[in-house]
């Protein structure tokens, strides 16, 4: 039984990768969690998860006649399975993002929760693909006008592709009053609940520098606590793994990155 979430923002700088790993670690207390760096154009997750020096990454699974297996590029870290993406030129040039669907279909067999760390853009086919493939999106937003506007766009894309909205997670919050405004005035614009409000916290930057997820690096920090609360509000609705895998394999996907 598995549910696939695309963790998406539509805009960079919202702390999406930090949020993906934090939700993953929190959900791993109760579920088998697999986290995939689905931003094949600009890898990031490997640096947050201490995987910068690994040999096999998602890129190696997306090439013609791949020698690597999904197991080779899957790393047991922090209580989760993590599939990082690489930053290397040759691997990126040879990678076909369309193969992501087959990789995710295979990963679905062994997970309760799949978190796809999605590109912070809607600018290309491959960037939108995780939103198309997922059951639901988690929108990671800052409570600012540009981020809310982009979040609404991602939501409409998701709904257009029959992908649900699991909720909105406000991150890097400097002004809690802005989040309250959204709760009171804007909650109706979003299809899912507000999962939480995570304060801007130096611990997140320190964790990134240390190459560890926030919940491993500073589990008692204010931000880590807020992420755990948000994960607890996320109602996981696992579907049949075979159905999910089949849906991924059937998805019509782009020819070009």
């Amino acid at each position, binding site marked *: 039984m598995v549910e696939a979430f695309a963790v998406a923002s539509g805009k960079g700088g919202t702390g999406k990768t930090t949020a993906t790993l934090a939700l993953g670690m929190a959900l791993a207390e109760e579920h088998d969690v697999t986290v995939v760096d689905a931003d094949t154009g600009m890898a990031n997750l490997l640096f947050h998860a201490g995987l910068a020096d690994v040999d096999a990454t998602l890129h190696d699974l997306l090439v013609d006649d791949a020698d690597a297996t999904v197991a080779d590029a899957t790393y047991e870290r922090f209580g989760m399975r993590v599939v990082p993406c690489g*930053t290397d030129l040759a691997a990126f040039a040879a990678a076909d993002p369309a193969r992501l669907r087959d990789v995710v279909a295979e990963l679905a067999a062994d997970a309760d929760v799949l978190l796809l760390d999605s590109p*912070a853009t809607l600018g290309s086919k491959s960037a*939108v693909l995780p939103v198309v493939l997922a059951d639901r999106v988690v929108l990671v937003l800052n409570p600012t006008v540009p981020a809310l506007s982009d979040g*609404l*766009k991602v939501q409409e894309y998701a709904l257009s592709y029959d992908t649900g909205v699991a909720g909105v997670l406000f991150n890097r919050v400097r002004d809690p009053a802005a989040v309250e405004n959204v709760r009171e005035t804007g909650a109706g*614009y979003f299809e899912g609940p507000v999962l939480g409000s995570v304060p801007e916290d130096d611990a997140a930057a320190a964790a990134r520098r240390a190459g560890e997820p926030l919940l491993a690096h500073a589990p008692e920090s204010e931000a880590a606590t807020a992420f755990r609360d948000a994960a607890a509000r996320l109602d996981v609705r696992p579907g049949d793994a075979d159905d999910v895998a089949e849906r991924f394999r059937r998805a*019509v*996907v782009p*020819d070009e990155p």
Partner: protein
Amino acid sequence: MTPDGTPVFDRVVADAGEVLAAALDRSLTGTAVLEPGDAVLLDGEGRGVLGIRDGVPVAARHAGTGRTGADAVADLADAGPYRVTLYANPDGPADAGGAVDPAVPADLLASDVDLAARLREAAPADAGGPADSADAVEAFLADEETIAGIRERAREEAARRAEEWGFADATE
């Protein structure tokens, strides 16, 4: 010297516009290090550094000539292919030299008029300004007509692109 931040992109690109567009699409904040192909022989002296905020180039410095701003960008022009490393650093670009007009790198390095226009448009008139405030968020959320328009346009765009991109099955 390696800039602070997380390396998120490390590639040789024939067209520097590719990396400027990637940084813009993702609203990257950090530093881009561009090393022209022949600079490998110059022990890094031909390398240029761009400071980027919210996807928009804001500063430039050239290691070899010591020039900054638009001059530093000019020193890099016509020198591709480049090895480009992008470092994400939410704390902002550090030590990236003198201020540069947001569109200058796209103009000089990529001769890409459309990208230059997108970058100019994306550049904040007053960085960190009122769009971040609770009052601005409140005013935005109260404007139902604007929000309905954003959603409607996004739906139309998603449907149009589904057709273009072959996602049509997903929308049926």
